[in-house]
């Protein structure tokens, strides 16, 4: 009972292969392929198979080529300490190696976990409905725009976003808007948050969606969200609010400031720093229930009358509604949502609020220390900050950032003389080093 060379992940012994071919009535596997010769491939990819151990070594070598820097980076992607229990539970094969829950009777576990995730987001946003994930904050924003396009019967086609917005997020939004014939325009910022007066001038019938963020990309907590919401309301534009799952635990409830939709990032819970991999939040009010993109888990009953969970309202989705679906999304970030939910459960509301409060306190404290250095001023904006803040430097920002890298620290250079610095529980213990490095290079 031996196996020919081939994929190590097929169990067929040579005898079994022979028996199976005989049962089908062909001589070899080739006979089962119906590929015309003209398009058949008989070349080689040139990929040498390697052993598991070789690949582990190879990848360890490759990743070892990343410099060992202490990162003070944020701007939409945040690392917090992920408790070990998150890995251990989420890695259970029944979660990790399952598919979408098309047969709910045999998938109650994952469905309940996603239902719980949705519920946590409902609490954090104050809105009625949260889906069980989008890819990331950027695509969630794009989906919000297409939802606005469907639900708002304003004459216009403008999606109004802050002038300061992460470049990548804006670029993704543009791609979702293009297909819906929407145009992305910006409103001015004043000191890191929306210039609400200028926004009031700009708002109008052409606006189908007004988007604001808190914290903003500069880490500033928006102070006049309710006023922004009112502006949206006045012209019947959808008010979409962008935020972050940790920030939401302490900031004004989106529902309270009139948000129709909340998008943003929830991967700051559950995921390690992952090169930008994320977990998109999408929550909205009941009103838009039939227009929500993505998957929804609902409660129902089984044949015995016991509570059971199932994917629901699937007629919104591409596999049923096809080109009239609310989104093309199919595979989403379910397992990441599971991780975020476990992380949130592990923290509890206490731990989550502590984490958020520390994000405010640590940023303020670090800004103050940097401000004390000559050649730097921080925070640049006279606002409350969450995790991160801008720093004005006398010398060119790029040069300072490069010098800091030489000292072992990574920060953002966001403009000619502007840096941005992000502090979380992961690097809070390294601020002395960063301040010293700043002193060195300024």
């Amino acid at each position, binding site marked *: 009972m031996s196996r020919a060379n*081939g*994929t190590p992940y097929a*169990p067929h012994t040579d005898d079994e*292969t022979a028996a199976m071919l005989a049962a*089908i009535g062909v001589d070899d596997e080739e006979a*089962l*392929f119906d*590929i015309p010769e003209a*398009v058949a491939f008989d070349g080689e990819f*040139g*990929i*040498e198979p390697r052993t598991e151990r070789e690949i*582990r070594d*190879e*990848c360890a070598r490759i*990743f*070892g080529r*990343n410099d060992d*820097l202490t990162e003070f980076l944020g701007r939409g992607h945040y690392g917090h300490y992920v408790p070990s229990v998150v890995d251990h*539970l989420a*890695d259970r*094969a*029944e979660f*990790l*190696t399952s*598919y979408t*829950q098309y*047969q*709910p009777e*045999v998938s*109650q*576990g994952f469905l309940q976990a996603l239902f719980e995730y949705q519920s946590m987001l409902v609490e*954090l946003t104050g809105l009625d409905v949260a889906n069980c*994930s989008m*890819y990331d904050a950027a695509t969630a924003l794009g989906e919000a725009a297409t939802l606005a396009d469907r639900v708002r019967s304003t004459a216009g086609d403008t999606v109004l976003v802050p002038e300061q917005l992460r470049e*990548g997020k804006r*670029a*993704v939004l543009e*791609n979702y808007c293009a*297909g819906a014939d929407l145009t992305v325009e910006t409103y001015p910022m004043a000191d890191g948050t929306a210039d609400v007066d200028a926004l009031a001038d700009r708002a109008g019938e052409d606006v189908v969606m007004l988007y604001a963020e808190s914290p903003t990309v500069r880490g500033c907590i928006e*102070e006049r969200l309710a006023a922004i919401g009112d502006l949206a309301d006045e012209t019947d534009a959808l008010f979409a609010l962008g935020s972050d799952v940790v920030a939401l635990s*302490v*900031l004004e409830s989106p529902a309270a400031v009139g948000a129709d939709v909340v998008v943003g990032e929830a991967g700051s819970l559950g995921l390690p720093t992952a*090169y*930008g*991999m994320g977990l998109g939040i999408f929550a909205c009010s009941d009103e838009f229930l039939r227009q929500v993109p993505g998957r*929804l888990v609902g409660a*129902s009953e089984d044949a015995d009358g*016991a509570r059971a969970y199932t994917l629901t309202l699937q*007629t919104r989705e591409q*596999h049923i509604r*096809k*080109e009239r679906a609310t989104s*093309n999304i199919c*595979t989403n*970030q*379910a397992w990441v949502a*599971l991780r975020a939910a476990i992380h949130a459960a592990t923290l509890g*509301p206490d731990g989550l609020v502590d984490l958020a*409060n520390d994000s405010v306190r640590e940023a303020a404290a670090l800004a103050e220390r940097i401000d004390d250095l000559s050649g730097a001023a921080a925070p640049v904006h006279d606002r409350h900050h969450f995790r991160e803040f801008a720093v004005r430097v006398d010398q060119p920002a790029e040069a300072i950032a490069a010098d800091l890298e030489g000292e072992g620290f990574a920060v953002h250079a966001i403009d000619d003389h502007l840096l941005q610095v992000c502090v979380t529980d992961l690097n809070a213990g390294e601020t002395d080093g960063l301040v010293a490095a700043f002193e060195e290079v300024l």
Partner: protein
Amino acid sequence: MIHDQANYEREGEDVREPLLSEKGQETVDVREDSPLPDDLTREELTLPNPSEPETARHYTRLSQMNWAIDAGPYPLGSCTMKYNPKFTEDVAADPNAAIHPDRSARSAQGNLELQYRLQEVLAEIGGMDAVTLQPPAGAAGELTGILVAKAYHEHHGNDRSEVVIPASAHGTNFATAATAGYDVVELPSGEDGRVDLEALEAAVGDDTAALMLTNPNTVGLFERDITEIAEVVHDAGGLLYYDGANLNALLGRGRPGDMGFDVMHYNVHKTFATPHGGGGPGAGPVGVVDELAPFLPTPRVREAAEGSGYERFEPAHTIGKVHGFAGNWLVSIKAYAYVARLGDEGLADAAAKAVLNANYLAERIDLDVPFGPFHHEFAATAGDRDAADVAKRMLDFGVHPPTTKWPEMVPEAMLTEPTEIEGQSSLDDLAEAFNLAYADTDEALDAAPNRTAAGRIDQVGAARNPRLSWQALDGE
């Protein structure tokens, strides 16, 4: 085989494992300790606060109430549920790979190198010239590809408004075309289950931006006329998009690029065995031929000047971005590790065994399979039985049923894709489950499933009276 699924039930209360919220919540006074002024904060936050032992037990129990590929066969057609090699998890967990996306290229050479290497092997496997890893799933890859096609046409002053899609295609194809702003032209299936060339010629014209096709198609049939199909589309000035969901059947035996496809996505959570995770994360890298490369999302990764490693660059006419950062990075790592493990031989063998398995299983079941010769998957018909009911009954026999009622060209379809990872005995288990369920009484089918954590679930009720959070259950 018979499988009783684990269940933790509270009889009187008619619930299984209670919700985290039912186990106890805590309300925190947010303002008490807040460094922020009251008008910027919420008053309170109410969430579950289980201790770690309770958390562990909760999710362990939930997991036991969930079917998975590591529990048994999961032959969902079009989904390519492969075994996910464990070592790829360890590779992806390397803390050195866990860096921020805004790192300078100089300080992120390791990640750039892996991205570059994966781009290269994917290009080779698909017969494409350039690859982006940014799209975070198959559908996102489709959108990327169609936006690239659109940008290409626009760049050449061509305003085309239609995307042609076979009726049997996956829903994401239609939805993607619409999301990209195209009108969808649906192509009826030919009598043999394949694209009908005449219908295609009729459908394609000056307005055709692209034809989206998967090959083998969604019932596992190779589009034999692919060269002619490509000609028709290209002659009309359109582009050919390849939906990579079925690439597993072609590995080492055919490359979309060689068949005339201009742009494709790879579905790495299917073909390259990265775990589906209950619905993601996946990854949908997109490959294109040279002419389309300048339109790919930014940034891409290339080798820098000799000896200086790798660098990011912006393609000349980039469509911008389709993900806020670099896509689902952890998934990219796992895909790389999988491809490296198999190599040329292993990849070709995966395709061979996947096709062998589908054909063997089809041979073993009592249901009819209307179309052929199929490759890695087949659509059996439940005939006068309800495919969904047959599927529910199969759950009692220790297997997951196939995809049901799709594609529509097969009545009461049971679209079955065992993949290469099942051996003869588990295929026999699957066949037995098919046959027992198919032959069972109407009553038995109605009453099924019986051995799963939950009995048959009222899905109509769930949609009619949506309760989507524990808040919505309150007071029930």
